[in-house]
């Protein structure tokens, strides 16, 4: 077949040109793809594949022995969760824990950021001090709290009971159905303040100083400055922190696993500790997978709602 240059339709040229562009773009980005590839391969192997595998697992009465039969049960694992009182207790615990720890971390993190966002003696020292719990392992800080809040001879017990006489001598913290979760909340808030401080410091430093100066000229007091300038301009930062912290709060696992194993009487059970014990001590892997997918769905919804609610633009 003969094709003269005159026979070439315009469309054909366009396609050829586009193809040429694609090749050039591919050549140009090839190194980029190659750099991304190892990370993506690991992500696919260690994160994406198990995630999808767990999704499939949640529809089976899954037997961990690969040579044994795993009967398909449809939605039974999901339905079982909705009628399981322990699942709902874990759900309530997680909502309560997340609400308190997110609020506590944001308020205290912002307060510390405001305090440390000025010229202060030993500023770096204090910033490091507040950030220290963030970089310390969850297991380590959990064990420290086990010691601090140990009943009858722990430092907290000694100080509040024997020194201040505020609590009875035999007060139990992590062994009490009413106090164990609040104790874990104190741990969660304390550990998170430093991270929030850093995020809010970055947010505060991106607010232009002129706004404060102009407002001061207009006679605004400190509270007005905070209320009318700082807070609205920090809204994107707060949104970011709330979304990330909510996901973290819903996914709480290590401190409960280390300190209380979800007890006493499921009072500190979270969705993930409950999933873990269902999988690895009762071998109900399908049920555990269903719980984690309900958890993932709820977190996804919450994140969507939060981002929608707090997306309003602020302009000055």
């Amino acid at each position: 077949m003969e094709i003269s240059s005159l026979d070439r339709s315009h469309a054909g040229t366009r396609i050829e040109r586009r193809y040429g562009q694609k090749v050039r773009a591919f050549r140009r980005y090839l190194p980029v793809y190659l750099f991304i590839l190892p990370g993506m391969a690991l992500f696919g192997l260690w994160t994406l594949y198990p995630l999808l595998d767990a999704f499939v697992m949640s529809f089976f009465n899954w037997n961990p022995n690969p040579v044994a039969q795993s009967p398909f049960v449809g939605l039974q694992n999901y339905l079982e969760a909705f009628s399981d009182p322990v699942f709902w207790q874990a759900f309530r615990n997680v909502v309560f824990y997340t609400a308190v720890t997110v609020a506590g971390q944001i308020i205290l993190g912002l307060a510390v950021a405001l305090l440390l966002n000025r010229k202060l003696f030993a500023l770096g020292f204090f910033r490091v001090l507040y950030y220290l719990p963030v970089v310390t392992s969850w297991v380590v800080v959990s064990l420290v709290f086990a010691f601090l809040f140990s009943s009858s001879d722990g430092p907290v017990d000694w100080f509040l009971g024997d020194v201040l006489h505020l609590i009875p001598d035999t007060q139990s913290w992590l062994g009490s159905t009413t106090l164990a979760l609040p104790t874990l909340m104190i741990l969660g808030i304390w550990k998170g303040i430093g991270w929030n401080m850093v995020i809010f410091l970055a947010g505060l430093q991106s607010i232009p100083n002129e706004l404060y100066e102009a407002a001061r000229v207009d006679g605004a007091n400190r509270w007005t400055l905070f209320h009318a300038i700082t807070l609205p301009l920090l809204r994107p930062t707060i949104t970011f922190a709330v979304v990330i912290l909510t996901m973290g709060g819903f996914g709480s696992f290590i401190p409960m696993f280390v300190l209380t194993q979800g007890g006493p009487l499921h009072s500190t059970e979270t969705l993930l500790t409950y999933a873990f014990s269902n999988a690895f001590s009762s071998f109900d892997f399908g049920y555990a997978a269903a719980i984690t997918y309900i958890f993932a769905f709820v977190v996804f919804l919450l994140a969507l709602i939060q981002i929608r609610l707090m997306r309003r633009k602020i302009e000055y």
Partner: protein
Amino acid sequence: MQTPISRRRFLERSAQLALAGSAAGSFLAACGNTTTSSSSTKTTITFWNAYNVTDPENQTLLTKVIPAFQQKYPNIVVKSQNIPYNSLLQKLIATVAGGAGPDVVRSDIIWMPQLAKIGALVPTDDIVAQRKSEFYPGPLATCAYKGKYYGLPLDTNTRVMFYGKKLLSEVGASQPPTTTEEFQALSAKISALNKNFYGYAEGGLDAWNILPWIWSFGGAVTNDDYTAATGYINSPQSVAALEYLVNLYKTRALAPNLLGGSSYSPDDEFGKGHVGFILEGPWEPPTLQQTYSSLQYAMALVPAGPGGSSISVVGGEDIAVMSSSKNIDAATTFMQFMTSEAAQVPLGEVGQMPVLTSLTNDSRMPAYFSAFAQQLQTAKPRPVTPNYTKIDTILTNAFNLAFRGQASAQAALNSAAQQIDPLLSA
């Protein structure tokens, strides 16, 4: 932010790591095989156990038992891997799922039905048929699931009452209590000696802790063939036992640490002479000897309930071949060796009670074994069912409700019976 994400993925990662680790391990083992097989067809088997690395039992296993095995079977190489007790079941199940578990495992007796149910263990009916009379019947029964045997008993134990002689004489008693009534009176007197003293201290509210009292009072968890809990765990005798313990707790005769959240260690407080009575196993005397060598103590049977029977709880381990093993014959040879006198005697000498009837009253065994052997004659196993871990949680919750006064002992155990019944039919 890194922490919440890593928490969320902790579950997946830990399973993956376990899988990857074991896969790498078996890969290395396989490499070892090929290199050695060229010269002298050697088989390597891995043996998972929860022996403490620093314990005399582990030293004996590595320096005496395994070398003796390899002398007898030069073509089989045994690699022992110590895995912490609390993560052994999880690791085992993660590697079973990956098809790359160990060849032989030393499993707690309470996990056996659960592992047998998912088909993770090789049946041993033919071995048991030949060797049945060699083993004590109690430990052998822990290998049975639905009419078949899996693995062989490896070691056994039970809890007896340890009593501090000094505290006992301080409250004017020359003999240890033999009935629950005497036990209660003496415990109350010891607690009254000092603000920091307790008559009795217990480590928690698991079945392991509480069942000796329920059985000694004439109660039970289920019927004998583990098909019904109603009428057993909520029988008048079971309820009376729980009420008895709650009363000990409320009157300060029993230390409050068993509700959790405390760093109080019953064994250490007993060692320091602050606690009159503990219930403990045969591993305790060597530990007390090491840490509290000046303590004057002795052992006696668990106090007998109103019906006159003293019944404790059977503990111990079985040894089993994993069905995912590529070397089932070599693994079975090792399992047989571990349950022979050649292994049972040296491990017995360092505190692991043997399961062979031929070693009853054997002079090579520690003298204090006699107290445990006597208690074992009446000791009972915890419910033998693949749902044991769930039943343990239900029992612990019921005991918690009663101790915390959130339900009467009767109501708590009624509810437990209702929850356990459907788990037994499965």
